[in-house]
């Protein structure tokens, strides 16, 4: 397929609370990705950085900041911000540059140094910012939104807190096998049930933490990969960065109300479903072709929602899919074999890139104890604040 780009290298900095600068995490991840690709940084024609907005001023210019740390060498530079979808937009930008003939090789980097506790908006009185408003007017943190979605699933589909806990049990079991994960301990359902309620019905162990971390990819044209002797690289076949369609009728972060459906009948498809569909259409595949999926488990309940949004099962059937072991390692479609955000925590600009790093490892058959046997096709799915879609399909 002519629209494909090659993944020559993938690299990460271990996630955790290290208390150092995002520059360090990004540089370590970038060097690891370059090593993995067997490339010298000076051969890279373009760098795309996914921005952090918490690292102080340099964070707003992540591409150049990492380029400087690696050593100025004149590469084309881009910095992108799309909240949790920043990494996917960075991959999308890199791909566009490669397919457009602007660069043969692009380094994609995302890294963050997360604050302690709840994410919060930038300072100052900013009543024109929906993110500021939801905190100021309602005290609505990210976990309260996760709680709303979880309760809604319980009411509509009959999910239980025990179902949610089983997502954590699954992901922590997988995260224990991943040397880059922050949490390497297996968690039991009893431990989830014994943890403190954060936003009813979700408990501390249902909700992902904030972390430091970094992830990077070296992408190239298929032609460049061939010239380097890489004949069968992992390829990126689709990058979905769609926006919602009016009226968006599912209450979503950071908004405190939905669009009204009084004038326009809402589409049958939700925003998250449209993120996946756009990726499937671009890749020319469907959910039945997938070997694995990396989804954005900000909460245990949200992972279940993604099963349905990705079309892994019908609406309301996610808990059954989980209970049947379909999404566990060894199941028909393992989900979050990396351990997911449950094991990594959020390092916002890095996480969508980290998802693709895991897909690359899996598709190369280099994932060790957490390897999905015979993996050929993987999808990552994610969603950024303010209406940023994010999904990547990689194939081997």
């Amino acid at each position: 397929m002519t629209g494909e780009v090659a993944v020559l290298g993938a690299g990460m900095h271990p996630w955790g609370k290290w208390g150092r600068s995002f520059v360090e995490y990004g540089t370590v991840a970038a060097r690891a990705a370059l090593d993995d690709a067997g490339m010298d940084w000076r051969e890279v024609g373009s760098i795309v950085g996914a921005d952090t907005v918490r690292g102080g001023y340099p964070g707003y210019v992540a591409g150049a900041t990492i380029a400087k740390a690696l050593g100025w060498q004149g590469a084309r530079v881009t910095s992108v911000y799309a909240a949790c979808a920043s990494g996917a937009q960075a991959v999308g930008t890199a791909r566009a540059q490669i397919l457009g003939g602007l660069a043969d090789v692009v380094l994609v980097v995302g890294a963050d140094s997360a604050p302690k506790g709840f994410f919060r908006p930038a300072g100052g009185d900013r009543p024109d910012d929906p993110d500021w408003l939801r905190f100021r007017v309602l005290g609505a943190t990210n976990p309260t939104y996760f709680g709303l979605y979880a309760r809604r699933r319980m009411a509509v589909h009959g999910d239980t807190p025990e179902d949610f806990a089983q997502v954590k049990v699954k992901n922590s079991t997988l995260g224990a096998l991943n040397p880059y994960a922050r949490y390497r301990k297996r968690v039991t359902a009893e431990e989830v049930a014994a943890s403190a309620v954060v936003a009813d019905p979700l408990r501390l162990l249902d909700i992902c933490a904030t972390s430091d971390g970094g992830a990077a990819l070296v992408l190239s044209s298929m032609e460049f990969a061939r010239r380097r002797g890489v004949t069968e690289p992992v390829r990126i076949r689709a990058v979905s960065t769609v926006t919602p369609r009016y009226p968006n009728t599912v209450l979503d972060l950071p908004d405190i109300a939905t669009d009204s459906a009084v004038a326009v009948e809402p589409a049958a498809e939700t925003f998250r479903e449209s993120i996946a569909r756009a990726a499937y259409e671009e890749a020319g595949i469907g959910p039945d072709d997938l070997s694995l999926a990396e989804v954005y488990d900000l909460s245990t309940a949200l992972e279940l929602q993604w099963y349905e949004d990705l079309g892994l099962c019908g609406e309301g059937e996610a808990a059954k899919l989980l209970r049947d072991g379909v999404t566990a390692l060894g199941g028909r479609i393992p989900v979050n074999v990396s351990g997911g955000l449950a094991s990594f925590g959020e390092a916002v600009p890095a996480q969508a890139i980290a998802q693709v790093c895991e897909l690359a490892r899996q598709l190369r058959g280099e994932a060790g104890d957490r390897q999905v046997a015979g993996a050929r096709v993987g999808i990552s799915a994610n969603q950024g604040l303010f209406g940023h879609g994010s999904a990547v399909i990689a194939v081997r």
Partner: protein
Amino acid sequence: MVAGWFTGEGDDFRLLGTRCSACTSVFFPREDVCCRNPACPGGGLREVALSRRGRVWSYTDGRYRPPSPYVSDPELPWEPYALIAVELAAERLVVLGQAVPGVTVAGLTVGMEVEVVPGVLHEDAETTWTTWHWRPTGVTA
């Protein structure tokens, strides 16, 4: 804090949104610049009072003190409050709000009818910040 989001006292209390004169779309929080329906040629946006009553779409609470810019007294122990997302049938939209004090998640179910009432978000010696609260119908106090 934010102007023009609600009006009135007691039984006359209402959330205020805007309605597009061309396509009838309703916006809350109010949209005063231009209609966000991509199929709409664009009409005038007029202030409109939203329905008083709706049904619970979902609910949760916050067991830990939210960070700034939420204002709370760090000297006092944190008292969780419930947050309710309410579906308004006539406007076909969902509006999130705090529950009236005293209503906890234990007293809520999805689908239950609630109504909008005036409430106090926070007060100190100089200022009282008013807001809207959702209250299950039939609950007085």
